[in-house]
């Protein structure tokens, strides 16, 4: 009987219509992956990079000037006034920090869920997180008015003996945002170490070899090291997951712990987290769709990656839409006249246009991603991703504008930004894009080692990885 036994195939035969698109297109080799990704940072600076960098750097200078003006003149240069004492500063803070959440979702949550496609986009998304949190972090620092006393937020012994007051959600926010920034940076850097070693081993000039070598910390690719490294990576992913969920929850507590109609709701933490991931994926799509073609990385960031990111946008956008509906329902169901009025005023009051921009961008736009033809059309996806960014800015605008009409009509008022508000916000894009462009120029923008590890030829149990059919591996 033994002579009729044929060895079992290692890879089960999948019918063609059920086959998945590979995550690295065109059957690229492991070496090709290094060449393509490291090649971006090694090539001559392309002209388009300068066309993007110079305006970004100019905007960064603008932001710096606006902050200098704010610090020297005081917060009166902003449009803040009674009753809207929280204006563009908090809107922009929440908007930027929300954008960061997609990076952590991709790097941590999708890692725990074994979503291999994350490797194509996680490095750039994590970089986006770090730069977005930097933009966000500026606002709490400068909005305090006397910026030079910003360190009072931290529990540092002072001569008058007073301490920060930890019963306020604003103090929780200090800890949440600074932890978020630090842990995101640690996670990003740890992921970079093996790739910096790739850059070091490919470096042609002494200075590049020295600098990449310094930051690669002497990484050799030893399996004893990989073993500890992978465990540390898993733990960081496991810690970043509750972290990212807590950060936007705590940001939402800044609002919901108050007793104002429209803010004092229990739905805020989960709804803010979903909104943050939604806006973050919008920004990831906005950044990566042009980058993949400009940097010739279409084989590594494929249509399938874009398709999957559209699906996450659809899922989180639907949660956001549900949250909007539930907020309105609860406002009505509560029977509280102030709560009911706050929501009526959001939709039909003087700032109702903001509410309808929010609804059209955040509720209608993502629903288009049900259609495969739309998910596969990069230009349409890119335009829709811009709508997501706009919509999520208006969501925070709508929430903050609830302040303009509270319990007493004699207390009502209106709010508008000043030119300083506007230029500071525009300037944060300068900060964001300056850092992002420098990142593209000098660091591997896709996780080289991680992408290699998900190819079939990297798997010792796959025929392409050298496994023999019928062998015990």
């Amino acid at each position, binding site marked *: 009987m033994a002579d009729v036994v044929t060895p079992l195939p290692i890879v089960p035969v999948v019918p063609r219509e059920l086959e998945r698109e590979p995550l690295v297109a065109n059957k690229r080799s492991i070496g090709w992956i290094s060449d393509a990704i490291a090649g971006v940072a090694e090539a001559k600076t392309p002209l388009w990079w300068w066309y993007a960098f110079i305006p970004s750097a100019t905007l960064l200078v603008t932001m710096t000037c606006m902050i200098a003006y704010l610090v020297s003149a005081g917060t009166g240069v902003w449009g803040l006034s009674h009753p809207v004492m929280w204006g563009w500063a908090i809107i922009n803070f929440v908007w930027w920090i929300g954008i960061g959440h997609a990076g952590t979702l991709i790097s941590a949550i999708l890692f725990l869920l074994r979503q291999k496609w994350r490797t194509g986009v996680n490095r750039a998304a994590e970089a986006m997180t770090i730069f977005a949190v930097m933009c966000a972090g500026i606002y709490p620092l400068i909005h305090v008015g006397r910026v030079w006393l910003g360190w009072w937020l931290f529990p540092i012994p002072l001569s008058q003996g007073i301490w920060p007051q930890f019963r306020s959600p604003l103090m929780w926010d200090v800890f949440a945002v600074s932890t978020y920034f630090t842990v995101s940076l640690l996670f990003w850097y740890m992921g970079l170490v093996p790739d910096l070693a790739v850059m070091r081993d490919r470096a042609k000039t002494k200075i590049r070899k020295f600098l990449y070598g310094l930051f690669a910390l002497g990484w050799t*690719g030893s399996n004893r090291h990989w073993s500890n490294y992978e465990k540390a990576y898993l733990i960081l992913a496991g810690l970043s997951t509750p972290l990212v969920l807590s950060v936007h929850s705590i940001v939402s507590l800044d609002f919901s712990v108050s007793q104002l109609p429209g803010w004092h709701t229990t739905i805020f933490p989960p709804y803010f987290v979903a909104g943050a991931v939604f806006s973050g994926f919008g920004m990831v799509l906005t950044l990566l769709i042009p980058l993949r073609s400009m940097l010739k990385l279409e084989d590594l960031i494929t249509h399938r990656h874009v398709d999957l990111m559209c699906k996450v946008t659809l899922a989180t956008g639907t949660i956001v839409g549900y949250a909007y509906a539930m907020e309105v329902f609860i406002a009505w169901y509560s029977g509280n006249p102030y709560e009911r009025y706050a929501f009526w005023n959001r939709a039909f009051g003087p700032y109702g246009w903001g509410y309808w921009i929010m609804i059209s961008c955040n509720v209608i736009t993502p629903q288009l991603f049900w259609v495969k033809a739309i998910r596969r059309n990069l230009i349409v996806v890119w335009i829709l991703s811009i709508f997501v960014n706009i919509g999520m800015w208006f969501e925070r605008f709508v929430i903050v504008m609830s302040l303009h009409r509270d319990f007493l009509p004699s207390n009502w008022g209106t709010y508008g930004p000043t030119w300083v508000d506007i230029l500071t916000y525009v300037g944060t894009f300068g900060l964001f894009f300056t850092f992002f462009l420098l990142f593209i120029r000098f660091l591997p923008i896709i996780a080289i080692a991680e992408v290699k590890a998900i190819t079939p030829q990297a798997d010792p149990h796959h025929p392409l990885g050298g496994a023999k059919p019928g062998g015990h591996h």
Partner: protein
Amino acid sequence: MAAPGKPIATSRPYGILAEFDNPAATMHAAEKVRDAGYRRWDVFSPYPVHGMDSAMGLKNSKVGWFSFTGGVLGYTTGMLMIWFLNAVDYPIIVGGKPMFSPFGAFPPSYELTILFGSFGALLGMLFLNRLPRLHHPLLKHGRFAQATHDRFYVVIETTDPKYSESETRRLLESAGSAHIELVEE
């Protein structure tokens, strides 16, 4: 891959290096070296190869303990700090709230748990790997630069008690290495 335990003469080579061009062959070689009873040896690959830990006979990484210690330290620091600052050292009545409540102190303590736990994971990983180490005999070796590109290496150190130039070389040859050479210290 720790530093050699006792000083050795500079003329002595660091180890014997065998190159492989696919992960399956490397894994088989690692199993052979493990079964032959070598202790001071390692596999080098451009990415973490799944199953290589058991092929090498490595135990579960201890990084988790560093992270756990960090996390416990972070949570305790947060709770004790807030209690001391707001309830002992300078109590102020705010909005009729208790001077200390574990619920109000929880969010910052939770964040500190994650912060210290993350530092524990990263620093624990670096400590266990004895990194940063900016000088290594293999990093001077020209061909070894391919270890971060698309090649796989098995390196057996000369300090291994079982090391013998001819025997070890024969073992690696029988594992099917395409290229074997001595690496200078």
